């Protein structure tokens, strides 16, 4: 081995030319290896600790879905009976969602699909149903460490099976929706939308499931649209209940049988347009509120809306849930609209449920329920309680006041008005033997030059005759499209409301 020592330099190391020897360079190289391994450990920490959440939630990461479907999903119940189930499947996902009556409860449950995700109640309460909610485990920290999966919990809805079935039967082949509420608590008794769909048809991940989904998405009738919650319609004359409430609450009208001072014909302020009535019986000046409501006179109610004033009208509408962008039951309802900036002619039209006024069936049910509950509007709730798989309660929902819309005395006057509508006026089809029924019809024009098939509305409440309590049911029905030639709320919507109310009353007795 040729090894020369440098003669010119003072040696610094024991290697050649005073360079560091191999034990020094070897240690340095070893240090280099140490640094490489430390870099790996640092990168592992970065991914597994600091960035883990992001990767776990990446849409392309199937692990959350696999975890979700590796045990039977908890159930959604109506009246104590499951309306959902789980079926074992082969493949990567162990279980898929099934529905006992998919179309009948689709507006309540939403869907849970291995491919297309979870929506509505299935989505909102997914943590409970899938077993991932921390409240399901007694030992949250321990389970976090052991990664123990909790069995899925159950979601007990407030739905009354009889009322739900009556709503679905009543809607039949027509395009429409029903929302029914228990006025004293806000519990939602029925939530129906037609045409409906079977959420079980695409719960899995097979080609058949994908085809079913594609077909539903392409359907121009929009079967997957939840019309009871997510679609607003001009409420037409049913909105006159709100207008009457505002007029009474603000002292514009004090006696429902006293003349209102409405001129006839009533020309919309600032225009030359006359607000026309649907029936000639309304074509006279100075009608009283009771007659105007019973006959559904546009002129009187438009006039009263303007007399009450924009702010007061907006306030009353908002008491019933209009303009609330976050009405969560817990599924979020679409925002019902009552314009806050209008001129007087627009206010007059809005006061009879036209112009830009639009409401979900849920909000119109809140209107009827608020009147029935002596002026107190309760927050609508679809979920009664959440339970663990062993039946123990995780969370119990309590009734909540949404707004005190009016005084009990004003509510009493409105109850009288609505009762008269059913007894003597346009709502006769909702009469129930042995029950006091209050209601209001609506036939809303829409489309370009009002050429669309009118929306037929009916909102109502009912209680057994002689009962002094709060009516046990309030309901709103809308028929958006029907084969019928003569469209009116009284004809198309009132019978459905009647059967839903009857179903609830029958269950109470």
């Amino acid at each position, binding site marked *: 081995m040729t090894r020369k020592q440098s003669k010119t330099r003072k040696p610094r190391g024991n290697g050649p030319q005073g360079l560091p020897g191999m034990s*020094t360079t070897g240690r340095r190289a070893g240090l280099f*290896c140490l640094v490489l391994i430390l870099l*790996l450990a640092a990168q592992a920490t970065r991914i597994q600790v600091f960035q883990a959440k992001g990767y776990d939630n990446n849409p392309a990461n199937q692990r959350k879905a696999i975890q979700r479907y590796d045990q039977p999903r908890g159930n959604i119940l109506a009246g104590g009976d499951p309306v959902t189930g789980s079926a074992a499947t082969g493949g990567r996902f162990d279980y898929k969602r099934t529905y006992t009556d998919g179309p009948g409860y689709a507006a309540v449950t939403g869907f849970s699909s291995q491919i297309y995700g979870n929506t509505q109640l299935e989505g909102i309460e997914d943590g409970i149903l899938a077993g991932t909610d921390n409240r399901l485990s007694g030992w949250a920290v321990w389970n976090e460490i052991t990664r123990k999966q909790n069995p899925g919990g159950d979601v007990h809805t407030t739905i009354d099976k009889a009322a739900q079935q009556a709503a679905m039967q009543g809607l039949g082949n027509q395009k429409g929706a029903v929302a029914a509420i228990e006025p004293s608590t806000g519990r939602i008794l029925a939530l129906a939308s037609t045409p409906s769909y079977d959420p079980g048809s695409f719960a899995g991940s097979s080609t058949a499931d994908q085809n079913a989904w594609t077909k539903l998405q392409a359907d121009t009738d929009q079967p997957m649209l939840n019309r009871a919650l997510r679609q607003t319609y001009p409420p037409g004359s049913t909105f006159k209940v709100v207008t009457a409430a505002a007029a009474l609450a603000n002292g514009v009208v004090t006696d429902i049988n006293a003349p209102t001072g409405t001129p006839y014909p009533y020309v919309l302020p600032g225009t030359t347009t006359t607000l026309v009535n649907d029936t000639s019986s309304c074509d006279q000046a100075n009608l009283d509120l009771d007659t105007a409501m019973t006959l559904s006179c546009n002129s009187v109610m438009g006039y009263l809306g303007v007399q009450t004033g924009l702010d007061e009208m907006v306030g009353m509408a908002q008491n019933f849930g209009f303009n609330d962008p976050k009405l969560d039951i817990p599924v979020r309802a679409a925002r019902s609209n009552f314009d806050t900036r209008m001129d007087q002619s627009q206010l007059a039209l809005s006061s009879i449920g036209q112009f830009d006024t639009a409401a979900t069936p849920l909000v119109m049910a809140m209107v009827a329920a608020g009147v029935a509950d002596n002026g107190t509007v309760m927050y609508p709730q679809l979920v009664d309680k959440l339970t663990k798989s062993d039946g123990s309660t995780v969370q119990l929902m309590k009734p909540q006041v949404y707004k005190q819309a009016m005084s009990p005395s004003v509510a009493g006057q409105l109850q009288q008005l609505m009762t008269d509508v059913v007894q003597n006026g346009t709502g006769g089809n909702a009469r129930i033997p042995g029950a006091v029924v209050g209601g209001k019809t609506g036939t809303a024009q829409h489309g370009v030059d009002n050429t669309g098939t009118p929306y037929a509305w009916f909102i109502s409440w009912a209680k057994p005759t002689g009962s002094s309590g709060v009516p046990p049911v309030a309901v709103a029905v809308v028929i958006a499209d029907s084969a019928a030639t003569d469209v009116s709320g009284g004809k198309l919507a009132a019978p459905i409301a009647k059967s839903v109310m009857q179903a609830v009353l029958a269950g109470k007795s």
Partner: protein
Amino acid sequence: MATPAVAAVRGGPTGPRPSTGRNVELALVLCAVAIAVFGYIEVGVNIDDKVPPDAAEYGAALGGLALIAHGVIRWRARYADPLLLPIAVLLNGIGLVVIYRLDRATPSSHAAPTQLLWSTLGVALCVAVIVLLRDHRILRRYAYSGALVALVLLVVPIFFPAVYGSRIWITIGPFSIQPGEFAKILLVIFFAAYLSAHRGALALTGRRIWRFTLPPGRVLGPVLLVWAAFIGVLVLETDLGMSLLYFGIFVVMLYVATARISWIAIGLVLAAAGVVMVGWLSPHVHARVDQWLHPLASVAAGQGANQIAQSLFAFAWGGVLGTGLGLGHSILIGFAAKSDFILATIGEELGLVGMVALLLLYLLLVSRGYRAGIALRDPFGRLLAIGLATIIGLQVFVVAGGVLDLIPLTGATLPFIAQGGSSVVTNWIIVALLVRLSDTARRPVPEGETR
């Protein structure tokens, strides 16, 4: 400490008997086997809710292999570093467990039995090397012929069909071997021999340019030629992991031998040039670099997760403590889940804790190799030990860095753990050489000689 019986036989008359550490080794080997068997049982319990029926056989097989190796070390290399064998047994045992676990997710292909067979062959070769190679300096004689054999080993696969885009396998019937793995050892032996012989010339002579002393072409030429031949072959075979590895070992050994910073500078320049050239010429490499920089780009593009993304998902899902063996979903990585990407399964199922433990095992193995190298007296032995340890260190970095998205993915096997017969056999030979080298390094100096 040696047992009294051993001490009585081996103990010389010269002063206090040095500790051989053989009993420590035995205890650690038994621990390693126990850990691996426990892992095997955990897989069965987690997947089937029962202890695998063949757990005892598996334990016996691994334990038998480990004890044979231990016995041979006791017999022929009694002063060897007592940590080398236990670490190798533990890593190989973990590898078998993880491959067995992944077999459960791929019912159509079972790799664990084959891997056990290869491990057996690996241990057999390890034993053979320890028994037959009494003095590592013998290897110096075969350095040049070894380099030639290595070159042949690297060239041969070019004539075999490409597998997954790389021509690095020789496939004969059901068997496929990766000769490049064996070539690593031969190359390190050659480098160690050549550098120890020409160390002075490399370090001292040469033209001085600015602050760097460039070595003379006469000395540098053969080294560069061999290196370029290897790199060229590897690029032709599109085995970038191996190229990177060879290159790293080359630079590290050159630096250790000569202490010339200029080597590192030259190395980096060459590496940069190589990377740019290969990245420019090969769309395959270009894609790898893109994936490294943007692992989630394919998700954003709506094409689903690529392998790197899937690997990252697996690591992330494991978190700190992991899902437990058998409870992860690293099989979603798809192709190469048992080989190049096997670390992702460990990350997912054993968590960051398991990852750090594993990295520490490798670090310990590498450091024991370096330790032996620094303790040795002859430059050839020193360079050989350091080179062999560097193979393991760099290979861990290249493969783990790839699947962790720290560096571009190149495709290499995780030492002892990844599926691949050639790799596991090679690693056992490396351990055998380190056992021999550490035995020499730690052997007490006989009376009359000086250190």
